[in-house]
């Protein structure tokens, strides 16, 4: 059965920070309360978009994530969405998504296509 929240976009605060794990695939650490409010569970894939840029992230839950959003580890994924004025923290839209999380190759492909 399709989840109702699949149709809704939520505005979220993203903080870019280091985590201890090594990150090779796009991962977002959402605040558990925020995730619950948005109907998002650990292991879901969400689309995070900012302007005309977007990627898909696998969700993990983390108590220390900001109350109104999540943490994206400092990586090719966070920096693809960030700009210089909002390098450490920015607002983005988040919604449940189909498919797998984005990979480093996906981001490089998008960047190379701009050439």
């Amino acid at each position, binding site marked *: 059965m399709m989840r109702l929240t699949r149709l809704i976009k939520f505005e979220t605060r993203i903080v870019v920070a280091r985590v201890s794990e090594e990150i090779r695939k796009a991962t977002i650490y959402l605040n558990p309360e925020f995730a619950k409010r948005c109907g998002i569970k650990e292991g879901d894939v969400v689309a995070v978009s900012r302007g005309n840029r977007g990627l898909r992230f696998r969700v993990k839950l983390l108590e220390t994530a900001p109350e109104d959003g999540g943490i994206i580890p400092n990586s090719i994924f966070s920096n693809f969405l*960030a700009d210089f004025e909002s390098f450490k923290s920015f607002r983005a839209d988040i919604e449940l998504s189909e498919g797998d999380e984005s990979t480093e190759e996906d981001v*490089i492909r998008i960047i190379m296509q701009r050439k």
Partner: protein
Amino acid sequence: MICTGCSCLCDDVEIAEGKILNACERGYRHISKYMENRAKPAVEGKEVDLDRAIEAAIEMLKSAKNPAIYGLDTSTIEAQKTAVKIAKKLNCYIDDNSSFCLGEFVEAILRKELPSSTLEDVRDKAYVIVYWGTNPYHSLPRHLSRYSYYPRGAKRQRGYDEDRYLVVIDIRKTEIAKLAKKNAKFIKVENDLELVDSFMKALDGKAGKYDVAGILREMKKADFNVVFGGLGLKYGLRGNFKAFIELLRNINKFAPLYFIPSGFHANMRGFNETLFEAVNAVNSYSFSSASSSPEFAFTELLKREKIDTALIVGTDPIASLPYEASSKLPKIKKIVVDPRKTLTSRIAEVVIPSAFSGIESGGEMVRSDGVRIKLKPIASSEFDDVYVLKRILEGL
């Protein structure tokens, strides 16, 4: 050995019977995995021998109209000095990650605008310890246990819950903010400039948006207090460094307060000091203009399409720079010198392998507080950053 996993440059890491002792998880990973995912010499995606890759780099730099040198924050002072010589010879730009990291803070310390001290002094004397916009739990994992909050110091013998006063300033409740219980304060900051203003008002006995009078009262009790400032502070100040410098100056009229930058690559401060000694600037330098300017930052040069070739040493700009800059990398020629295969090396025209400083290669680095540390490598390599950069310098 000296761990080069972060700018703490811990000097108590030992290798005994194949085991890595005393390192944190990050350091353990840095040391134990150094043989994984190693770069191989390549030109236009084809594997070649090392000499051929170095020759291709020399040819590319010779024919470049507007080259830049970028990175070097995990290289030794010796390698950084050689890179500065290359930049001088090419009359080109040179920059490192500090231009969008903590370079302004290091520059203010070197110009004596911010009073600073050593981590050993912090351990021995500091009472109020402020972490502002930095979460060492992940970026400098042993910072609190070796140098700041937890150790008993010469003048701080009674343990952290009596003899230290911890202040954590962040936009979220980080792991270290959770430590702020007894003799401590966590400030969830929405606007760093308003917090600076609250401190200024509190110094005049007035109330501001944030309640900080108690922190100032604690500072007054001691003859040594410290602020560790990170990227959250830098970006929170929105370019208004003068307000922060002014705040520290004013607090110092009232209680001694030192500043130490917190949270960068192993030898970023080394790069700042090396360039400062050579040209009186910490980053974003153009030899052709004989000056430093924000518009000579590597990121700005990319954004404004001012360069055609980059010699990239020990950093991975396609992964670490915001899209406005990283999306311009495909338009320029890239020579990558790195011990590891990086995402940038996948799209580079020339890849030159190197060695891990501190593990396979010796030399000197500068800790975040400015203390110079001699590396004690545990392995060896026929080539490292110094070898590669000297060959390039000779070939130009």
